């Protein structure tokens, strides 16, 4: 093995090894734990930087380890994986900082950060998976490492939420596994290849392939929270805020969406999927989810639940983009993978800040919070506006490309209304919050003030992460055309997928 | 001679059968044990006859052992009844 083969392994290991060490740290060794976390995160960032450069210049990074005859664990860096890896790495660093602040003086931090690192490792491994087999392995690992995080608080609700999460994801994982095995029997090792590999199978397999597609999409749809498989997501809100942030922006939900993208583009091939007549079905499922999630979000008073349903809706933009044939729709879907992540993590950070600093959990308690916590609320506003699709925030870019792609693919007739309705609904559930925060008079007292305002409105470790991610969201929109921007990278991916 | 031995083997068999009936009929455990003793004695005789009939001298050893251990069994039977009296 040379350097090129080791790089993907190192990317995964840079969070895995610190995580394993952290498990065995004493609860009190606070500094060592922080150092390990940050060193791992920064090291990973550096490694990913090398990866980005290399993949752009068409270097092949691949490591292969045989688990059983015909079953290889393959870590392979291509353009799509690099996009997801980068997102995870950057947001992991930010979330780690946030979590260190958030969990100050909380119990069981060694366990928490251990699983936190495992979770990120699983996500990165999933991003770098070079075939469906590897993907499934990391997909299940992700389930396993998130379970303790959701159950972390140990309250009956937490344990219950974790159990529901598990029931959904393990059930979905089983379908995914069956689909994968079936595909493996039909087509052999299903490596991820741009343009897909199944098109060459004889036509008599097509009915089976359709069933398999259904199995795979249901399996992935559970994590991606496609309606009606989304039931676990609001329940999982009991987790600590950094966990919610990670679940919604990077790890679980995004893993499902990423898997759908992988299956459609790199296993079936988008043209072949269309040929089997499966794209429209996927699109319709996505459209229903988008609208349904938005409507549900409208009626939630609990801020985190409102954000959760917003996630249900927003993540399906990615699936929608996948379902739109043609490079432009593809760009829209893929770039939303990143944009939604940055924006949603900001929203969860800020929601966590409200809860930690002032004890605010509900929308109705947010009156005038902008005056008490201006920076946090500003970050919240930027992200919320981005979600609605207001330029120049990142969300606008995604929606623009989705619309354009639908027009190009001749699917505008139903995609456009969905986009418009959803944007209106987005506005309907975010703008009143912004109004309350900035323009309503605050009540006589906050529900429970934990962190008194001193130098900053809240502790620094809590404040900086949302500010940074909000800035990133803004930058992703403003500098969308810059080289190495998410949009540019998504364009690169789309071009390679379509062989342009 | 062979015929005589055959006859006696079969006759012993008949004797054993009668003993068997007593084992089955009982009525008391003592009766059964007694009948088992009889079966043992008949068995010894049968083995002796068979040893000549089949030309297998080792069967005499078997008969000897059977005779000795039948006594042990009887002792075990009564011994275990004895011990209940304490």
């Amino acid at each position, binding site marked *: 093995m040379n350097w090129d083969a080791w790089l993907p392994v190192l990317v995964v290991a840079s969070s895995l090894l610190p995580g394993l060490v952290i498990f065995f740290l004493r609860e009190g060794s606070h500094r060592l734990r922080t150092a390990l976390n940050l060193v791992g995160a920064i090291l990973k960032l550096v490694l990913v930087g090398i990866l980005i450069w290399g993949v752009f210049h068409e270097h092949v990074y691949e490591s292969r380890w045989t688990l059983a005859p015909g079953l290889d664990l393959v870590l392979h860096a291509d353009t799509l994986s690099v996009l997801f890896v980068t997102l995870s790495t950057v947001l992991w660093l930010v979330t780690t900082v946030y979590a260190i602040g958030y969990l100050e003086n909380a119990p069981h931090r060694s366990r928490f950060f251990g699983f936190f690192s495992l979770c990120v490792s699983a996500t990165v491994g999933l991003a770098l998976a070079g075939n469906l087999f590897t993907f499934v392995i990391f997909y299940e690992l992700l389930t396993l490492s998130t379970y303790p995080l959701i159950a972390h608080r140990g309250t009956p609700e937490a344990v219950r939420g974790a159990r529901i999460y598990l029931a959904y994801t393990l059930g979905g994982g089983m379908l995914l596994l069956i689909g994968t095995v079936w595909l493996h029997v039909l087509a052999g090792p299903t490596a991820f290849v741009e343009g897909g590999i199944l098109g060459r199978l004889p036509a008599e397999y097509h009915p089976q392939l359709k069933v398999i597609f259904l199995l795979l999409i249901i399996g992935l749809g559970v994590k991606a929270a496609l309606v009606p498989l989304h039931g676990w997501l609001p329940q999982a809100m009991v987790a600590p805020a950094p966990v919610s942030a990670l679940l919604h922006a990077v790890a679980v939900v995004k893993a499902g969406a990423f898997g759908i993208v992988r299956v459609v583009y790199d296993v079936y091939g988008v043209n072949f999927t269309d040929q089997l007549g499966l794209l429209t079905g996927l699109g319709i499922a996505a459209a229903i989810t988008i609208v349904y999630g938005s409507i549900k979000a409208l009626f939630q008073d609990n801020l985190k639940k409102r954000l959760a349903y917003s996630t249900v809706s927003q993540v399906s933009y990615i699936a929608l983009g996948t379902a739109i044939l043609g490079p432009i729709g593809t760009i829209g879907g893929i770039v939303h993978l990143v944009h939604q992540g940055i924006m949603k993590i900001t929203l969860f950070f800020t929601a966590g800040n409200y809860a930690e600093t002032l004890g605010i959990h509900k929308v109705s308690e947010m009156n005038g919070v902008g005056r008490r916590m201006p920076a946090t609320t500003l970050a919240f506003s930027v992200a919320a506006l981005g979600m609605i699709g207001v330029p120049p925030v990142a969300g606008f870019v995604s929606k623009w490309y989705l619309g354009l792609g639908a027009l190009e693919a001749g699917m505008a007739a139903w995609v456009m209304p969905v986009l418009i309705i959803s944007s209106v609904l987005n506005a309907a559930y975010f703008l009143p919050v912004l109004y309350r925060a900035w323009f309503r008079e605050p009540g006589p007292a906050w529900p429970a003030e934990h962190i008194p305002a001193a130098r900053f409105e809240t502790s620094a470790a809590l404040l900086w992460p949302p500010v940074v991610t909000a800035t990133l969201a803004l930058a992703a929109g403003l500098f969308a055309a810059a080289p190495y921007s998410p949009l540019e990278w998504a364009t690169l991916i789309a071009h390679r997928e379509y062989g342009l | *001679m062979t015929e*005589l*031995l055959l*006859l*006696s083997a079969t*006759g*012993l068999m*008949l*004797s*054993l*059968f*009668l*003993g068997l*009936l*007593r084992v089955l009929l009982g009525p*008391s455990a*003592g*009766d059964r*044990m*007694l*009948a088992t*003793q*009889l079966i043992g*004695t*008949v068995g*010894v*005789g049968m083995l*002796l*006859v068979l040893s*000549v009939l089949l030309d297998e*001298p080792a069967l*005499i*050893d078997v*008969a*000897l052992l059977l*005779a*000795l251990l*039948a*006594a042990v069994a*009887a*002792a075990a*039977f*009564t011994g275990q*009844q*004895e011990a209940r*009296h304490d």
Partner: protein
Amino acid sequence: MINLASSILILAGLFFYLAGSIGLLRLPDLYTRLHALTKADNLGLGLLAAGLALHSQHLLTSLKLLLIWLAVLAASATSAHLIARQARRQETRR
């Protein structure tokens, strides 16, 4: 000559065996049955053994046959005694 004697002994033995067994079956209670067994059967075995001993060529075999008979005699005497005593005890207890 020996053959004849041996045959007679064996037949006599057989007779006593059968008599003992019939006695065991027909006699009314345990104590009378005891007699049938200890007397008739042991005699039967003795005659049988004697008959076979005449028939055998080796001295050792003959000695073994004698030993067997003695063993059975002693064993059945003892066990008959034990069984009778035990039955007796159970009766008195009742």
